[in-house]
Each structure stands twice: as structure tokens, then as C-alpha cells.
């Protein structure tokens, strides 16, 4: 047997005994991703901590301490944006959890036309948010809109969905749920089908009713899905911008402004420091709400 050709390229002198060979999993594989992520995401995030403390024209910045934040919490319309953001996130994630679970239960039962129903519920997830927003703005038109015309047929005098300041935010949130509930549903379906059948059989032998089945088997065992749905839609709700922008631009007045739309408006108006402060506020808001929420939802199941 002849010597292997590749061995000839190897060094004859042999390496010093202590030298390390290169890892087959080199760390530089991280590099392209790390550079892009570091430069375009991390660096601006850190920079925002400084620029939120300045009056800023993009060309020069003047350090003004916490003035932007003070303004943020003093201006009523900015505070309202903050409150709206939380309301919006709570409504959308709450409804998505409930409706998602309900739809998932329906769509995993032996109902007819399951495939059709799953598709119909899921498709809006893939459609352009702005397109959906514009469509529903039209459908929610107070006098000509299809929704109120439909209600009129039933003898109900429909409200000004997007024109009534008390209702605008909730209307947008409902459209958000319409568009996003399909995602919650498929996540729940994945969670439900992963529950081993044994549990239901054991429960049936124990004489559990349907309701007990749901309460003591389905609900606790689909908790990972619930956690995912809540966290995803809660973060999404807190960050939401495009739907609100497409439907109300934060109006009427500031009735449906959220922090994200405030950030955009301040940016447009050239208040870069204030806009960035808005970013930091949103960042803190998410951290303060989502981190404990995540820990709560993913806590070790003890007594259940």
C-alpha cells in the first residue's frame, strides 16, 4: 500500500507538543452575522442611550440631561401614547390567546372542512399589514363603511369606529386581532396535537367531563403554547406601528397614538432627541413588562 498522497503536504518536522490545532468549528463563522447585527442593531441601541439625553439635529447634539424624558412624561399626548401602547398590547394579546385557543380547539376537533378553515384563518397573517389596514379603514367608514351598513340592516346604529376617540384604538386592536389570530391558532394547534392522547384517556377513565378535560388536561399542558402566544403578541403589540399608521395615524387627535407612532412623528418633526428618548422609553417598557411576564409564564410548573 502506497503512502497516502495527502500526507506529503503535512509538515515533516512535527508540531511542538503543546500547540493547539484549529477548531473545526471556527469562531469566525459568527463574524458576518456579528458585524451586521453589531453595527446596525447593537450600536444604535447603545447610541440611543446617549442621544436620548441630547437635543439632536443628526449633525450635532447638545447634552440636555433628562429633559427629553421629562417632556415625554409631562406632555399629555405623549403620556397617552404610553398608556395606549399598554392597552393595545393587553387587548391584542388577550384576545389572541382566547380566540386562538378557541379556534385551535375547534380546528383540532372532528369538524368538517378543517383544512379550509385553517387556511382561511391563517391567510391574513401573510397579507400586507398596510393593505389590511387600508381595507379595514374603508370597511369601518362611519357612514359608508360595510360594517356599519351591515349593522344598519340589523337595526343597529354602528359607532364611528375610527372617528370616535374613545373607540379608535380598540378598533385598530380588533383589526390586529383579525390579522394575527391565525398565527396564535396555528401555534395552539401545534401545542394541542403534541399533548399525548394518554392523558385524555386517563382522564376519561377517571370520569372527567369535557369541561374538566379542558381545565385539567388541555389548559395546563398547552401552557408552552400559551406562553409563546402571549409573549409574541404582547411584544408585537407594544412595538406596533404599521397598522396604526395605516389606519388612523394616531388620530383622531392623539387618541390612538402609541409610543411607536410617537417616535415616528417626532422623527418627522425633526425632534431627533425626543424621538430617541421615545425609543428608550419603549425599550424600557418592553423590558419591564416582558421580562417578568416571560419568567412568570415559563416558571416551573409546581402544583399544577
Amino acid at each position: 500500500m502506497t503512502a497516502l498522497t495527502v500526507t506529503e503536504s503535512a509538515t515533516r518536522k512535527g508540531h511542538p507538543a503543546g500547540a493547539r490545532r484549529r477548531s473545526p468549528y471556527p469562531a469566525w463563522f459568527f463574524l458576518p452575522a456579528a458585524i451586521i447585527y453589531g453595527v446596525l442593531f447593537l450600536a444604535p441601541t447603545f447610541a440611543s442611550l446617549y442621544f436620548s439625553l441630547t437635543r439632536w439635529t443628526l449633525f450635532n447634539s447638545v447634552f440636555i440631561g433628562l429633559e427629553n424624558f421629562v417632556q415625554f412624561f409631562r406632555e399629555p399626548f405623549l403620556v397617552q401614547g404610553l398608556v395606549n401602547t399598554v392597552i393595545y398590547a393587553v387587548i391584542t394579546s388577550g384576545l389572541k390567546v382566547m380566540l386562538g385557543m378557541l379556534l385551535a380547539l375547534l380546528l383540532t376537533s372532528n369538524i368538517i372542512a378543517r383544512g379550509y378553515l385553517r387556511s382561511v384563518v391563517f391567510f391574513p397573517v401573510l397579507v400586507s399589514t398596510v393593505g389590511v389596514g387600508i381595507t379595514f379603514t374603508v370597511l369601518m367608514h362611519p357612514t359608508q363603511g360595510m360594517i356599519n351598513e351591515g349593522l344598519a340592516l340589523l337595526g343597529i346604529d354602528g359607532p364611528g369606529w375610527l372617528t370616535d376617540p374613545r373607540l379608535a384604538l380598540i378598533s385598530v386592536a380588533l383589526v390586529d386581532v383579525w390579522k394575527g389570530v391565525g398565527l396564535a391558532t396555528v401555534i395552539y394547534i401545534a401545542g394541542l396535537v403534541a399533548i399525548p392522547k394518554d392523558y385524555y384517556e386517563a382522564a376519561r377513565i377517571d370520569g372527567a367531563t369535557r369541561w374538566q378535560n379542558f381545565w385539567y388536561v388541555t389548559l395546563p399542558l398547552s401552557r408552552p403554547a400559551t406562553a409563546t402566544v402571549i409573549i409574541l403578541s404582547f411584544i408585537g403589540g407594544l412595538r406596533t406601528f404599521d397598522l396604526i399608521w395605516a389606519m388612523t395615524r394616531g388620530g383622531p387627535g392623539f387618541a390612538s397614538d402609541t409610543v411607536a407612532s410617537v417616535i415616528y412623528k417626532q422623527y418627522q418633526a425633526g425632534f431627533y432627541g425626543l424621538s430617541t428618548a421615545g425609543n428608550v422609553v419603549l425599550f424600557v417598557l418592553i423590558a419591564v413588562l416582558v421580562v417578568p411576564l416571560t419568567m412568570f409564564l415559563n416558571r416551573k410548573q409546581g402544583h399544577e
Partner: protein
Amino acid sequence: MSKAGPIVGGIAAIVISALVFLVPFAFIILTAFKDRAQAAALDFTWPASFNLWTNLVEVVTTRNWMLVTAFINSTILTVSSVTLLVVFAAMVGFILARRKSRWNPLVEFLILAGLMIPPAVVPTIWLMQGLGLFGKLHGLVLIEVAYNLPFSIILYRAFIATIPRELDEAAIIDGARPLDVFFRVILPLLWPVTVTNIVVQSVGIFNDFTNPLYYLPGNQNATVQLTLYNFQSQFNTSYNLLFTNILLITIPPLIVFLFFNRQIVAGMTAGAVKG
């Protein structure tokens, strides 16, 4: 257990779902067929005359064929950023799954942070201006890559962990260098999850409105979602054209939906079961 239950329930579900989920789409389609006057009524009625073709021509040619430019821009944006995402995220997922190091917790933290933290918009614009990336399509490509990396990495890492390490080792003994191991052995095996990645990220990036709005201003640069936004003010009263435009930009996701429904659902529900 009666047989009638599922059928009655099913019919009720079909009717309700059609009312809630299909009527809005039907409305888009009907309005796209109408002429300007009829569309302005915003009614859910049958078109009096079929004007889809004229509407299409008008939408496409308006503002110096802006929609065509926008479709080209969106296609370039989507294809380039998804390509980079696939390669770079798979590389990170590969090392993350294979090499235990004390950096891993930091990397994982950054991934979670990326999923959670809203991007700091103005500082990003400032930085991109400094780098000459602001208002450039390739700048937006890099932005989409940066913002969507965490999700792709998570998908890849979970999948790579299921590929036996002996495969890498066999390749190493066969003389493969790290790049060979990755590109000739691992990456081909990631195909199923790559398809998922491609479809999920394509839909997201194609539909993205916020980032082009911030980082790619100007009509010349418009992506399809922005044409909608620009058109909305221009055609404030020409709803037929607005909805023709909406119809047009809904077609790509519809195609993806028809062909890759399973992969999308798989990608979007990944992690739901194990939490």
C-alpha cells in the same frame, strides 16, 4: 356522539369564517373591478362594469411606472436579504450548536434581545448616514438581515442539533476544512429548515412597511408597501385603483401560501411546543 354535531358545527363555522375572513378579501377584489364612481360608494356590491384591466394599467403606469420599480426593489430587497440571512444565520446556528464555549450564553442573550428590543430608529439612521448606507437599497438589505437574524438563528440551531456530529467528523477525516464541512455537508442537510426560513422571512420582508419607510425614503426607492402608502393619499378618492394595488401586492404572499403553507406554519410554530 351524533353525526350531526360536527356537520352543523362545521357549517356554522364555515359561514362565520367566510363572513369574518373572506368578505374583506372579496371586498378588495370587487372594488378592484369597479370603476371609480362605483368604487367611491364603498359598497359590497357586484361591479356594474368590469374595469380590472384599465385599473391595472392605470395603477402600474402611474407616476412613471412607480409600481414596477417598487416591485423590482422589493424583489431585490427580499431575495438579497433572505439569501444573506440563510447563510449567515446557518453559520451562527452551526457553531452555536456544535461548539461549547463560554461565549454561547452571551450570544443567546443577544439573540433574545434582538427578538425583543425595538430598533433605535434615529441613531440607526445617523449611523447609516455615516456609513453611506442610508437611503440605499443595500443599506436596507443589511437592516433586514440584522433585524431578522435572531429568528433565523433559532430555527437553524434547533435543527442542527439534530444532525449527528459524526457526520462532521467523517467529513473532517475525509479532509474537509471548516468551510467544506459547512457548505458541502451541513448546509445541504439544512434544506427543509432553509425552505421554512426562506418562505417565512420572504413574506415578512416583502410585507415590511416600517423599515423601508424609515431607511429608504424617496419615491425612486419605494418598495411595494410604500407605494400603497403613497398611493393612498394620491388616490384618496379613487378606491378602485387603491384596491387594485392592494390586490396586486397580495398576490405574492398568496402564491407563497398556496405552495408553502406547511413550511410557513412549521416555521412560525417552531418552539411553541417546547416553549
